């Protein structure tokens, strides 16, 4: 059944026991993104050292796909240089969009390949990509480039209905 392609055991593992869940103190990169079409949110915090990802953590809520993807991601990118991260993100995008994937050496990619089933469920690609989009944008902003995402902030969130 196609569903089993999507909901693989690897994802189950990460979903039930998410790695690197939480918020790093004094992070070098801190970014929150939302999936505008469904409301899923992720807060990503990273510590960088010598151009490499030293630590990564995520907080948020969402479906199996988005949570497992975030968990796997935070594991895979640790210790990698920014360019390496970008390359994996690129591979991951291809994988979940088209099912195609140039497998680099090394078994650490098994867990990434577990997301191959997503491409059969186009409405879920956004779920799989949320963490990675956040990551790429965070790195870009960290790299001194401008904000890509037009955050229109004209007030604080999380208020009570009838303040003031």
């Amino acid at each position: 059944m196609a569903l089993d392609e999507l909901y693989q055991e690897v994802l189950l593992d990460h979903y039930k026991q998410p790695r690197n869940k939480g918020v790093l103190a004094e992070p070098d990169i801190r970014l929150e993104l939302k999936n505008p079409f469904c409301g899923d949110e992720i807060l990503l915090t990273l510590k960088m050292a010598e151009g490499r990802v030293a630590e990564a953590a995520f907080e948020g809520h969402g479906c199996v796909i988005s949570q497992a993807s975030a968990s796997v991601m935070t594991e895979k990118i640790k210790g990698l240089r920014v360019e390496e991260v970008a390359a994996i993100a690129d591979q991951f995008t291809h994988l979940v969009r088209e099912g195609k994937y140039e497998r680099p050496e090394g078994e650490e990619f098994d867990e990434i390949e577990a997301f191959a089933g997503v491409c059969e469920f186009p409405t879920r690609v956004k779920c799989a990509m949320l963490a990675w989009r956040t990551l790429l944008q965070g790195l870009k902003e960290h790299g001194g480039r401008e904000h890509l995402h037009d955050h229109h902030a004209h007030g604080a969130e999380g208020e009570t209905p009838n303040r003031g």
Partner: protein
Amino acid sequence: MIEVSKIRADFPLFAQPENRDLVYLDSAATTHRPRQVLEAIDEFYRRDNANPHRGAYRLAERATTAYESARSRVAAFIGAGRSEEVVFTRNATEAVNLVAWGWAERHVREGDEIIVTELEHHSNLVPWQMVAQRRGAKLRFLEFDQAGNLDPVQLEGLLSERSRLLAITQVSNALGTINPLRPFIDKAHAAGALVLVDGAQSVPHTAVDVRALDADFLVFSGHKMLGPLGIGVLYAKIEHLEAMEPFLFGGDMISSVGYHSSEWNDVPWKFEAGTQNVAGAVGLAAAMDYLDGIGMEAVAEHDRRLTRLAVEKLAPIDQLHLYGPMPERGPVVSFNLATIHPHDLATFLDQKGIAIRSGHHCAQVVMRKLGLAATARASFYLYNDEQDVERLVTGLLQAKDYFKKWL
């Protein structure tokens, strides 16, 4: 009573091979169209197409007649006194924005208050946030209770001489709450405030009479009531329309243009800038004919019956949480099943041919208030039947089984 099999035969989408097995439970997002509507659109393009109001030739006259007859049809459907009270927009969202820019921008002043309910769709909330911000006005929220109901008495506490507008939905797309509007409208009027009714989820499902309601503004969308995409309606009492400024400029909305200034056309045309979606208006009129052919009472009764059945069948499912008022509600059932995320649930059900909606339903304030990120939502219309409800129930039980180890 509605004979669903006969009705379904009118809807070509259900006859497509790829949709044969489809249980479509997302009519609150958009409906499908009967061939009568598709044919009306096609017929317009094939026979009467031209730019209305602009040509002195017969084809243009036919187009003008088609467009203005559609306006009268809409006026009759909602009980408006005159067709000039009907402005065609792109959708319900644009209709709310037209009131925000056209009316509120002129009539809401610093320190004034706009009351919205916590039940509102983003389309009837965000425009008022922006008005409040631009005008220095204050948003006040009419809160809903545990069951998802509003209380007219609470409204009294919010109303004051600073109240300019109450923005209230007739039926909530997230919880299904049916707001008995009259007491709310009367209280608002007594305080000197106008009332905008979001009819996006009510006009498709029940007879709405703007004069009986005494609504100042009513908005709705064609695509949620068997009509085409790209057409919506703002009804407004003529005196309010005449006190409004347009916010889209150019094309037919003017009566005279100079180098540095211009004069506007009469209402409602001054609000319809550029070439309008005539085929959309014609299709909407055809949808209203179709609905009236069945009878809005019959439609309402059918929707009520299915919704009651769905609530009855879903409520006993273990670990299934239903939200919103029971049992009377609009044809919308919001729920969560155990800790299965609604997306995962929707994907699972989709594999079984059942299309439900998952997410915040453009009602994040509702979600926030309920402490939820998302819900699953099934919504019904005249082409759904008991079997659809049965399939949903079966699907949910299977889903629970499938996701057992993920919980």
